[in-house]
């Protein structure tokens, strides 16, 4: 066994050990690395209910209501559970019904999520408007791509 074979061995064992360590750390941190909780996770009490957390999902079609001043109400859904959200402020450009959204805030005693920040989540689809129209016509069921949030 030459010296360079030994060094290669050390290198490979080192990298394997490092990879294993990283995998263990990431597994242990699993939930803490997620940026938001889905409505289902909130329903299962996985979200910290007494604290500020982020809620992510789709804005349910037809649920957006504009109230007094700049207050808006909408429903965030993951097609399994729903949560009512209330927000006062300016919504980002991409915010629309059927589109992904992430709101930061806390649940009040009535189970309404009071948000102090709302971010729009974009999906991985990029296409010219004509293609989007064609897709829309071919399946009227919903906006293309919005299901895989």
């Amino acid at each position, binding site marked *: 066994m030459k010296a360079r074979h030994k060094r290669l061995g050390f290198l490979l064992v080192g990298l394997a050990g490092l990879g294993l360590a990283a995998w263990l750390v*990431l597994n242990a941190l699993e939930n803490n*690395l997620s*940026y938001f909780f889905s409505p289902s996770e909130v329903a299962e009490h996985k979200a910290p209910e007494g604290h500020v957390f982020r809620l992510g999902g789709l804005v349910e079609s037809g649920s957006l209501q504009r109230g007094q001043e700049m207050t808006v109400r909408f429903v965030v859904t993951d097609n399994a559970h729903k949560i009512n959200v209330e927000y006062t402020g300016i919504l980002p450009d*991409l915010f629309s019904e059927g589109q992904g959204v992430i709101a930061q805030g806390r649940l009040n005693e009535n189970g309404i999520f009071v948000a102090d*920040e709302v*971010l*729009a989540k974009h999906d991985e689809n*990029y296409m*010219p408007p004509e293609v989007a129209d064609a897709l829309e016509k071919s399946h009227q069921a919903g906006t293309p791509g919005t299901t895989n949030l």
Partner: protein
Amino acid sequence: MNSRLINWFKFSSPATYYPLAGRLVPLFSVIALVLIGVGLYMSFFIAPTDYKQGEGYRIIFVHVPAAWMSMFIYVVMAVWSGLGLVFNTRLSAMMAKALAPTGAMFAFLALWTGAFWGKPMWGAWWVWDARLTSELILLFLYIGFIALQGAIDDPRRADRAGAILALVGVVNIPIIYFSVKWWNTLHQGASVSITKGSSMGQVMLWTMLIMTLGFWAYSIAVSLARVRSIILERERDTTWVSELPEVRG
């Protein structure tokens, strides 16, 4: 050894690699100029408007290729570092050193263009989600590598310390790539992947691929030019350097 095969070890010597790199630099510079020129023209004038994001999406043509390059250059740097540690070749560490500033630039470019896109689309310049944070760590790894190599005077020890840092940091690369899959992130999933194909319009995809190839050619040209000056600096006391026409003249 079979005589038809190229003897790769010949090019592990700085004295043979130096003139080879010198011939390749102008070639790749021209390729980079042409591809990036065509790519930018297509980005601004030919690629269609996006159905939802309007014109603002055009930043993707710089953002995604830059992010890809920042990850790929790091992997190449780690491979050179590993080769240097195993075979004790001087040139490997010089290549790793030459690649680092270009990789750092691309990591910065990806973060910077991402912030410009994020403000109008998401409503935030920056969020601490898994994708953004791990890419920021990549930028810090590049800066750390450059700083560590620069801080040690003895080049052999500097190379070895840098190589170990580069190899340890390589665990971050799959984390960046898969972060959007493994965890809930604000950053969207991959629009282009080997397994799923692409979820972009055809012209948009081609524009992005041309920009990516242009960035490749740029990276090759710049890092070869940089490795030439590193070779000259480190080998300045050897006879082959003193006999070079550009050094004598």
